């Protein structure tokens, strides 16, 4: 049986966090108890991953396993107990995001799937897709600049950060789209409210 997890999937800047927040508000208005979790948010490893990520940039398998450990810790110590007591869990990045991250870096699909099979399947996955230009704009607005070490520099070294970023986003989203079901994909390069309405339509069936 699928667990009452709604997973927002996508690259940084795809709109995961803002649509997750809007969805949380919507569900709470409907009277649901909602918890959120996501990539690199565990008490066990979340902070440590942030600290060491730059040092282990090329240890892809290790970083992947650290991300899985981080998710598993949240699932077992926080998400499962909350769902058992009636909450809905929203994930800010879950297995599809992690799979795309790993595949973009050449880890084996079969191995990734095997390892991730330990985590519960979400009720619904919403892969959020946007244009690379739009994504880059959002990141610059949020962070103030493009951090070359944050995304993709380990796989696509280009003449400048912008080009490298665009290249990485393209690769990542290609992979994400290839492993996601078409009908659930959400294109976020539109008005925020319009996108949010679409998301609400998708989740109505599970929450009702």
């Amino acid at each position, binding site marked *: 049986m699928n667990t009452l997890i709604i997973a927002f999937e996508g690259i940084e800047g795809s709109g995961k966090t803002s649509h997750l927040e809007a969805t949380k508000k919507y569900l709470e208005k409907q009277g649901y108890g909602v918890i959120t979790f996501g990539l690199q948010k565990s008490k066990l490893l979340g902070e*440590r991953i942030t600290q060491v990520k730059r040092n282990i940039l090329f*240890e892809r398998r290790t970083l992947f396993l650290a991300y899985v450990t981080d998710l598993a810790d949240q699932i077992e110590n926080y998400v499962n107990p909350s769902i058992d007591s009636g909450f809905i869990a929203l994930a800010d990045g879950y297995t599809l995001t992690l799979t795309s991250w790993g595949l973009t870096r050449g880890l084996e699909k079969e191995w990734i799937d095997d390892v991730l099979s330990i985590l519960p399947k979400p009720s619904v996955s919403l892969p959020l897709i946007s244009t690379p230009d739009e994504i880059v704009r959002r990141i610059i607005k949020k962070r103030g600049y493009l951090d070359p070490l944050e995304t993709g520099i380990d796989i696509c070294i280009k003449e400048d950060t912008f080009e490298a970023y665009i290249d990485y986003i393209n690769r990542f989203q290609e992979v994400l789209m290839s492993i996601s079901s078409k009908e659930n994909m959400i294109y976020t390069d539109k008005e925020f409210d319009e996108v949010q309405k679409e998301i609400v339509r998708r989740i109505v069936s599970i929450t009702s």
Partner: protein
Amino acid sequence: MKGLLIAFEGIDGSGKSSQAVLLKDWIEMRRDVYLTEWNSSDWIHDIIKEAKKKNTLTPTTFSLIHATDFSDRYERFILPMLKSGFVVICDRYIYTAYARDVVRNVDFNWVKKLYSFAIKPNFTFYIRVTPEVALERIKKAKRKIKPQEAGIDILGELPLEEGFLKYQGMVVEIYDKIAKEESNFITIDGNRPLKDVQMDIRKILGEYIDNSL
């Protein structure tokens, strides 16, 4: 692979760490050699230690965090060193994870898949002792039994010696099973003096150390 991968397995108190060190000293005179211990990644081991103390690991996260630690050492040290011709000695290898995870009821097939990226050692010395002998050695060395050596996370708070015998007994059972399955396993009777065990190991390895490059 130009290098040679040698693993030591066995329960706590089996003497395998001493054997690993003695072997390293011997090989060092002839070849480049590197020794790595279980649970020693410089950025994860303190987290594991802390989590064990607080008892916040579940069987799944226990398994995954040790796999992360192993992978870090594997990608950083073990694999590049093997590729460049080192003899790499591992004081505990993936079979430790097999045994400890299975004892914690994690699905054996899943654990095997989790570690499927790791190459199999050329030699795995399984230093087999009974839990009773291991306990005697620990007492003789005047070392305290660590709570995790007494399986506190799965057996609860038993008296330490009782927990040790029970938990290590469970681990031995799994090791014995693995020893039958894995062709690289060499079971060595560890209930004997340190020196005798080491001589057996050196006898088996002798020509390989000199000729494998």
